[in-house]
C-alpha cells in the first residue's frame, strides 16, 4: 500500500531535520565504508566533566566554578548543541549540586533559546549513583534506568514558580513524620518555605538575567534530623537589594562593600520599607529568625558571590565567593525536638 499524504510529509520533515542537525553539528562523522546502522554512534558536541566531589556544601569553590564554566559555554555554543554530563568519576555528591544542575538545564535562557540537549552518565561509585537516583533526578530527564521505588527517607526534588501551600504542607508533614513531632513544631518551617517561594515570585525576575525564575526543594531524613534544601534561579539577594529604594542609605550608613554583607544586611532587616510597596521585605528577616532558633542548625545561604551562615546565637558569618552562583541556595538541618 502507498503512503498517505500525512505519512509522506512526516517522513520528509524527519529527513530534513536530520539534514539540518548534520549542518550544525561540529562532530558529526560519516564514513561511507561503514554500514549506516553502525555510523550513528553518539558523539556529543561538548563534554562537561563533573568534579570528584560534586557538592556546594563540601566543595563550594570547585562546584561554583564548574557551573560558571557551563554557563559560559551556553553563551557561545551553537544552536542544538548536545552536552554530555560526565559523572562517572564522581565519588561524593550532595543533592544541592544535582538540583542546581537540573535548574541549569531547565531554566537557563540560552539553553532553552538555542534548544540544547543533554545526555548524562551516572557515577561508577555506588553510593554517589544512589544519591543521583534517589534525589528525584529521573523525574526531570528521560532515562533508560528503571524507576526504583522512592526511598522513604528522602522526599524527591520538586519545583514550581508560584507560592504553593500544598507542597509546603507535604514537606512539613514529611519532616514532622521523620522527626516524630507534631505539626505545630514545623509551623515556622511552613512559613519560611512560603516566604522563600514568594521571594522568587516578586524579586526574581529581571530581563537581563540568565535564568528563568523557578524554585526547587528537597528534604531527606538522616536519622535524628532532616536536611532541607531550597534553590531558586532568580536574580539573587544582592541584586534584589541593590534595586531597593533604601539601598544607598543603608550602604552609606553601614559601609557595605561586598555581596555577602549585603545579604547579611537584608537578613537583618535593614531593607524593610515603610513606603507601601508590594513586598515589605519581611521575608528575609523571618528566615533569619528561624535560622537562629533552636530547631535549626547549620544554616547556609549562598547567593551571587555571597555566602552567609549562622550560629544559634544569632551571629551571622560571611564569606565572599570567588565564583558567582546565579540564584540563591538555602541549606539547613531541622533538628529533633529537645525534651
Amino acid at each position, binding site marked *: 500500500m502507498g503512503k498517505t499524504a500525512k505519512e509522506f510529509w512526516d517522513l520528509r520533515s524527519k529527513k530534513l531535520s536530520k539534514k539540518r542537525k548534520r549542518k550544525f553539528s561540529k562532530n558529526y562523522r560519516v564514513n561511507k565504508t561503514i554500514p549506516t546502522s553502525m555510523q550513528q554512534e553518539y558523539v556529543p558536541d561538548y563534554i562537561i566533566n563533573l568534579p570528584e566531589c560534586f557538592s556546594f556544601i563540601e566543595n563550594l569553590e570547585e562546584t561554583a566554578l564548574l557551573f560558571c564554566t557551563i554557563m559560559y559555554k551556553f553563551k557561545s555554543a551553537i544552536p542544538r548543541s548536545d552536552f554530555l554530563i560526565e559523572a562517572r568519576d564522581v565519588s561524593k555528591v550532595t543533592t544541592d549540586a544535582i538540583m542546581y544542575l537540573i535548574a541549569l538545564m531547565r531554566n537557563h535562557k540560552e539553553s532553552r533559546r538555542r534548544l540544547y540537549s543533554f545526555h548524562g552518565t551516572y557515577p561508577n561509585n555506588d553510593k554517589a549513583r544512589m544519591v543521583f537516583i534517589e534525589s528525584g533526578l529521573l523525574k526531570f530527564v528521560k532515562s533508560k534506568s528503571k524507576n526504583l521505588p522512592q526511598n522513604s527517607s528522602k522526599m524527591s526534588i520538586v519545583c514550581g514558580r508560584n507560592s504553593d*501551600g500544598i507542597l*509546603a504542607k507535604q514537606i512539613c508533614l514529611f519532616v514532622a513524620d521523620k522527626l516524630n513531632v507534631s505539626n505545630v513544631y514545623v509551623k515556622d518551617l*511552613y512559613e519560611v518555605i512560603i516566604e522563600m517561594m*514568594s521571594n522568587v*515570585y516578586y524579586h526574581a525576575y529581571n530581563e537581563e538575567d540568565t535564568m528563568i525564575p523557578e524554585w526547587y526543594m528537597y528534604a531527606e531524613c538522616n536519622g535524628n534530623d532532616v536536611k532541607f534544601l531550597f534553590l531558586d534561579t532568580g536574580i539573587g539577594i544582592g541584586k534584589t537589594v541593590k534595586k531597593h529604594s533604601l539601598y544607598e542609605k543603608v550602604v552609606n550608613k553601614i559601609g557595605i562593600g561586598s555581596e555577602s554583607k549585603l545579604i547579611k544586611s537584608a537578613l537583618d532587616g535593614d531593607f524593610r520599607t515603610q513606603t507601601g510597596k508590594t513586598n515589605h521585605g*519581611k521575608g528575609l528577616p523571618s528566615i533569619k529568625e528561624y535560622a537562629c532558633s533552636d530547631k535549626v542548625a547549620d544554616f547556609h545561604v549562598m547567593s551571587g558571590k555571597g555566602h552567609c551562615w549562622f550560629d544559634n546565637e544569632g551571629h551571622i558569618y560571611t564569606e565572599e565567593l570567588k565564583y558567582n552562583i546565579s540564584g540563591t541556595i538555602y541549606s539547613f538541618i531541622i533538628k529533633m525536638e529537645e525534651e
Partner: protein
Amino acid sequence: MKIVIAKDFSDTPGGRKISEGEFSGELFRQQLLLPKYEEAVKKNDKLEIDFDGAFGYPPSFLDEAFGGLVKILNKKNILENIVIISNDDLTIERRIKKYIADAEKEIMGGK
C-alpha cells in the same frame, strides 16, 4: 461572628497576592476578612478569628490581610472589633499587631 481560617478558608495559607498563588492574604481579606469585619462593625459586634488548625501563617499573608485591611479602610484601631484566637501559635497576635501598627504609620504618613 466568627472565622475559623483552617475551615472557612484554608489550612495552607499562601503568600501575599492572588497572582502569586492559592489562598493568599489578599484573597482572604477580600473574601472573608473585610466583609465579615464590616458586618461586625455595623452590628456593633466583635469578629472572632480562630487561627488554629492551619499549617502556618507566613508574614506576607498576615501583613497583606491585616495591614491591607487598615489601608483599605483607612482607619486606625481595627483590633477594637477583632478577637484573635490562637492556641497553637502564641506569636500570631503580636505579629498581627505589628503589621497593623506599620500600616497605621503608613496611612498617618500619607495624611
